[in-house]
């Protein structure tokens, strides 16, 4: 029987990339918590505007890039039949969310939260292993918007799976992948950054379910540089670039 895992799901394009990848690879969570409420406010990571899917023919270098970053989540979850609880909260640190995790979540939880949200002590102290995929190659590129920085620095793109700790982007690294620069750089935010993370997620979960254990590429995730939200001019240079 495949090892049991749960899914903490915010209403973001990344969550949709994860769901598409899990469905594509028949990786079924036994427990899903949807972090959403009735608020109309736009949250970091949510796709706004016209649907912008990656429309080109399947690219073997980007196997997880074909998903709809705006597909409605609840009907999709219903179709998949994944057991889902809805918290009526977008805050992973909300005491009721923490209690629900403490009471019913599996030991391993895939974390797909809102951008910028940090897990505080109470939720970390539930003792669960929170599997998170950072959009960037660790430890070199910690922090925010790191794939734009790495495109400018050395034309690289990456994603790294870690187990979350109180140290931002500092948990032990399970796997990290370097990927080719995305074919459509204007779609990095909602398609390719998410697809890179989904690709690593699938690889990690498959290995874990096959072997029953995590194989850490690097337990020591020290060093590197921390990056902050990239200036729009530099972001434009990264998108327009073709070195």
């Amino acid at each position, binding site marked *: 029987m495949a090892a049991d895992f749960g899914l903490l799901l915010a209403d973001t394009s990344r969550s949709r990339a994860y769901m598409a990848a899990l469905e594509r690879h028949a990786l079924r969570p036994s427990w899903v918590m949807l972090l959403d409420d009735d608020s109309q406010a736009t949250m*970091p990571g949510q796709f706004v505007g016209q649907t912008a899917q990656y429309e080109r023919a399947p690219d073997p270098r980007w196997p997880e890039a074909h998903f709809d970053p705006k597909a409605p989540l609840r009907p999709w979850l219903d179709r998949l039949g994944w057991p889902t609880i809805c918290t009526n909260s977008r805050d992973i640190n909300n005491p009721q969310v923490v209690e629900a995790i403490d009471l019913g979540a599996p030991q391993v939880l895939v974390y797909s939260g809102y*951008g910028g949200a940090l897990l505080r002590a109470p939720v970390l102290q539930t003792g669960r292993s929170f599997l998170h995929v950072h959009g960037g190659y660790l430890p070199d590129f910690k922090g*925010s*918007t790191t794939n734009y*920085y790495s495109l*400018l*620095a050395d034309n690289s793109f990456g994603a790294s799976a870690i187990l979350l700790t109180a140290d931002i982007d500092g948990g032990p690294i399970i796997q990290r992948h370097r990927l080719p620069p995305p074919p459509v750089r*204007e779609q990095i*935010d909602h398609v390719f950054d998410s697809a890179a993370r989904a690709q690593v997620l699938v690889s990690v979960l498959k290995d874990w379910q096959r072997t029953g254990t995590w194989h850490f590429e690097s337990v020591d995730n020290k060093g590197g*540089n*921390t*990056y*902050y*939200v*990239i*200036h*729009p*001019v*530099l*972001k*434009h*240079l*990264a*998108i*327009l*670039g*073709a*070195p």
Partner: protein
Amino acid sequence: MYAPFEGVAFLEAHAADRAARLAELGARQAADDGAFDVVRLTRLALARGESATLALAQLDPAQTIQTAALLGALLRALGTSGEGPAAHAWLARLVQRFEITKKIFERYEPGFRRGQGTAGCITLYLDAALCLSVAYGENGHLQYLSTLMKLNDLLLSVPADMYDVAVDRAVLGMVAATEANAIAKLAQRQGVAFNGR
């Protein structure tokens, strides 16, 4: 994080806006990208740091830090052999504080987390931008450039009467030139053509 993409037109508009604001503020951009003088930048930084009362080694993040003293020490230290790691450690702290709060305070409480006093002293922002200009020139760390550009956004958004000393305008021109030179080089490396480049 999700600033909308507007193509080359955005870069051209940004460059035009920078030039216009520098003119309004009476701050001549020190040089065009073809003749950017890094030696002059370093000399300016050292001159600004000459009056520093403390050396970096005397500053302890576990104590209250007067930001002017920190920036003076940083300006003197950057580019000085042997002080590189300490200078960059302090810059990393300052960058983190500015990126989180978008302000530079008069002083910081022990632990260098909470700022105290005014956050409206233009000289602190100018000196921070100058530190980042020198540091970026030394190691090309893109975070320094990104934060420098955000500082320049602030420095170029304030009323002209906040710059009451000619030397402050000269510093503004120099940090703007650093930015323009860096963007030009990055654009060339990225194969991005704009403004006739």
